[in-house]
């Protein structure tokens, strides 16, 4: 479907529709919050019923999420020791390999058995689809690092992590998408890195993105798009078809795990519809996790967990942060939006609409690590984390565009449009309101109770029900704490176990975090969109302190 995936250059009726849809999420969030406050004051009984119904849905939601968080975590552990290279080589000679693994005798090691079973199912699907992949030695990886203010201390570990991959670096092309307006030290650092790593990779190059390009906003997507176009010329020059290229657009601080590219190549190869797919790893924020204040650690661990939970639902999975996709799809959809901040999710929606719904995100149980937003002191870090969350919540800018496309589209089934539209809308509404309702508004009917309500049975029953629900919620938090401790990287610091123990207690800040680093930035972002005060791209502060 041909669609203008932008809020710019719209005809009058479309522009009006766009504006109405921009207002909708913020208006609904504010209406929900203010409505509940109004009811709490004037119709407390009505508010109490709604709040208890909300609490119940919340506890079921959190239990449901915790089940899949645990399952997802186990799958991440199971795939940790998978030999992806052997599997890739096997797919290159699929018929023999299939016989071989079918007859393979496995120990009674249940993680291995599960991994083997999943692998076998994927191969069966691949054979059934008759869409066989190119040979693994003909698959190339294009890695784009958009750079604007990141120094060598941030960029070099990211490159270094790619050089130690269990995958031929001669099939990897690195592109530094350097902003022309980047400061000289940054430009020098990038040039030095290119010199150092030029021979390690098939190609390592710089693409400078001009400071001012008509029709572009100052966003990461514009820079990455410029680099993507140059890379397309490069592959064309080397006669490498786009169908054989997988593009990974990474934040500059992304440090991939050693199995990232083998795992990505495997998933690309076994995916029958590989040219219309994105590949989503599990982002973790371990680069500087022990150097940041406790609240920031909890916030980012929560983000990783959210992605782990989402990975169990490929039908609704949307790309997030650093991820990979078919380069052909990227070229087909004309690269990333050049006027949107949330390029990571926008590229999925753009591709989904372009291919009339025939586009999917494949979850990969492999991690890539990024930095937690960190500044010079606690307060600045809090501001940085807040701004970063606001930027993430600005993903709400996708809603009006996607809805416009869904209203126009005739090829995407109605059920799919309703399902995804509802998920997108409900996700943003719940993001901006849940924290407030759970931590503050839920108590208002009791606080504002007038004599009549205070003398009712409901007045005494609401806190009792709420306490029971929160006590159940505490179990979910305990499981989350245990998983968080298991997922955290080992620290080289003395008394590291004490740090981890401290981290367990940091989870007690969840009510505070829910309000100030989740609901508030989301509501802020939605309000800005509602009022037409569009957000500008803001580069998160990243700071690392070497461990002693």
């Amino acid at each position, binding site marked *: 479907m041909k669609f203008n995936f932008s809020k710019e250059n719209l005809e009058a009726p479309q522009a009006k529709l766009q504006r109405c849809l921009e207002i909708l999420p913020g208006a609904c969030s504010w209406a929900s919050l203010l409505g509940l406050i109004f009811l709490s004051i004037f119709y407390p009984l009505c508010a109490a019923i709604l709040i208890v*119904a909300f609490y119940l849905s919340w506890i079921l939601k959190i239990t449901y999420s915790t*089940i899949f968080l645990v399952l997802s975590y186990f799958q991440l552990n199971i795939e940790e020791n998978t030999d992806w290279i052997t599997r890739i080589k096997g797919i290159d000679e699929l018929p023999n390999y299939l016989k071989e693994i079918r007859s393979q005798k496995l120990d009674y090691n249940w993680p291995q058995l599960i991994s083997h079973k999943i692998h076998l199912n994927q191969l069966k699907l691949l054979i059934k689809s008759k869409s066989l992949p190119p040979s693994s030695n003909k698959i190339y990886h294009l890695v784009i690092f958009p750079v604007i203010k990141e120094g060598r201390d941030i960029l070099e570990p990211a490159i270094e992590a790619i050089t130690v991959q269990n995958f031929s670096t001669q099939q990897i092309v690195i592109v530094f998408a350097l902003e022309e307006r980047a400061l000289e030290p940054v430009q020098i650092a990038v040039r030095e890195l290119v010199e150092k790593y030029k021979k390690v990779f098939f190609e390592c190059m710089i693409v400078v993105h001009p400071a001012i390009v008509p029709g572009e906003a100052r966003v990461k997507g514009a820079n990455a798009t410029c680099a993507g176009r140059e890379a397309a010329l490069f592959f064309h020059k080397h006669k490498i078809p786009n169908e054989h290229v997988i593009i990974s657009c990474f934040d500059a601080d992304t440090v991939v795990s050693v199995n990232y590219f083998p795992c990505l190549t495997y998933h690309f190869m076994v995916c029958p519809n590989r040219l219309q797919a994105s590949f989503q790893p599990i982002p973790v924020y371990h680069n500087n996790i022990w150097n940041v204040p406790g609240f920031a650690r909890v916030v980012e661990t929560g983000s990783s967990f959210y992605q782990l939970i989402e990975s169990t*639902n490929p039908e609704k999975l949307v790309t997030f942060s650093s991820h990979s996709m078919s380069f052909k799809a990227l070229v087909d959809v004309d690269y990333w939006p050049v006027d949107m901040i949330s390029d990571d999710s926008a590229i999925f929606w753009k591709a989904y609409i372009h291919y009339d719904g025939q586009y999917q995100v494949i979850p990969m149980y492999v991690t890539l690590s990024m930095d937690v937003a960190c500044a010079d002191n606690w307060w600045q870090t809090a501001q940085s984390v807040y701004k970063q969350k606001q930027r993430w919540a600005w993903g709400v800018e996708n809603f009006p565009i996607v809805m416009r496309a869904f209203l126009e589209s005739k090829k995407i089934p109605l059920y799919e449009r309703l399902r995804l539209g509802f998920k997108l809308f409900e996700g943003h509404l719940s993001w901006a309101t849940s924290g407030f309702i759970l931590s503050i508004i839920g108590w208002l009917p009791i606080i504002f109770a007038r004599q009549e309500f205070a003398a*009712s*049975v*409901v007045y005494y029953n609401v806190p009792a029900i709420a306490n029971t629900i929160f006590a159940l919620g505490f179990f979910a938090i305990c499981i989350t704490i245990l998983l968080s401790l298991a997922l955290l990287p080992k620290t080289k610091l003395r008394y590291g176990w004490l740090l981890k123990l401290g981290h367990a207690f940091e989870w007690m800040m969840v009510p505070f975090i829910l309000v100030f680093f989740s609901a508030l930035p989301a509501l802020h972002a939605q309000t800005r969109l509602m009022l037409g005060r569009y957000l500008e791209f803001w580069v998160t502060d990243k700071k690392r302190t070497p461990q002693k």
Partner: protein
Amino acid sequence: MLVLRKIIFYIFTVIYLILCPLIVVRMLGFVINPLTHRLVKTGLIYVSTNPPSAIVYIDGKQAHQTTPTAIRDLTPGEHFIRIELNGYNDWERNIPIVAKKATVLANILLIPEKWPIKKISNHSYQNIITAGDDILIASNPVLKDIDLFHTTQGITENFREENTYETTPLFSKNSIYNDGLLLRLFNAPQSPYILIEANIKDKHKFLWINLKENPPLIEDISDFFPEIPTRIAWDNADNDNIFAFYPQGIYRINIKDKAIYPQNTRHLPNNLKQQEPHPTQDKFLINDKNDLLTREWRWIHLSPKENFGKPQIYNIARSKPSTNMFFEDKNGELFYLDDDTGSLFSAQILPYHPILNIPIPDALRSK
């Protein structure tokens, strides 16, 4: 995983659709009557006692939790409530329960089997007045017999233990004022200062005493009173200025500047315009204003405000007529002068609930 996710999603949806209306109906006070299998409206009763942790029996059945507690699912009509706590008299009432309503029995004061009364001082006194936050002045005609007590001194976590109160004479052994005779004693609510009018060696003296200091700082300010005022008063917000009332007018005496200024009545602080300087206090609303502590002639009584049709008055002790009594909120003690001996006594009316005492750094304390 996707199939599992869908299965669990549908299971949870069904659970929600069943549980949500059930919980809401339950929250509104509806329960299913096990005999008739019909939905009936219920009420609840909320009970809190002072002291807490008492056992509640409703129609003879013990409630799951001790006080404070809410007892739910009570059918409309009268229910017999009994509250028991070791060392206290049982509290029993028939309480009406109304459908969908909560009957609140808040802060029921449990009456001890025997009032914990202790003698604080062997001396006999004429009257008691208060100063500052916790100073009790037990007065006598001779200045050397005036004693000070800090009312919060005796606080211990268990009021049944022997608490000790230290008696401090207002004037030291060697004080030149010791032989003086007390004529009048002035105080101001909450003010740590008192003013004593006394006859010392046949001279009319006015002594301004700062009780914040230890020993109290005594300043002779007799020179500021060329005549004997009918009344002396000051405002705790400004302890530097005292007001002397004469038939011909009011004078403001600035203790710091040692100066006297004529004062227009209009500019007098509002709380000083009333004429009664030392009202004898005979009534206290205690226990979060739920109960009344009163004195009729000699007897000190306690009468609960909310009596549920069963008015009761509890006698506590006999006090010396026309003397003050003082209720200390912080530790729930009542101070009075005993009717027979005139000695200072204290009765523990409310149990003492210690508040977590967070140490304040000295630097902040000095600020």
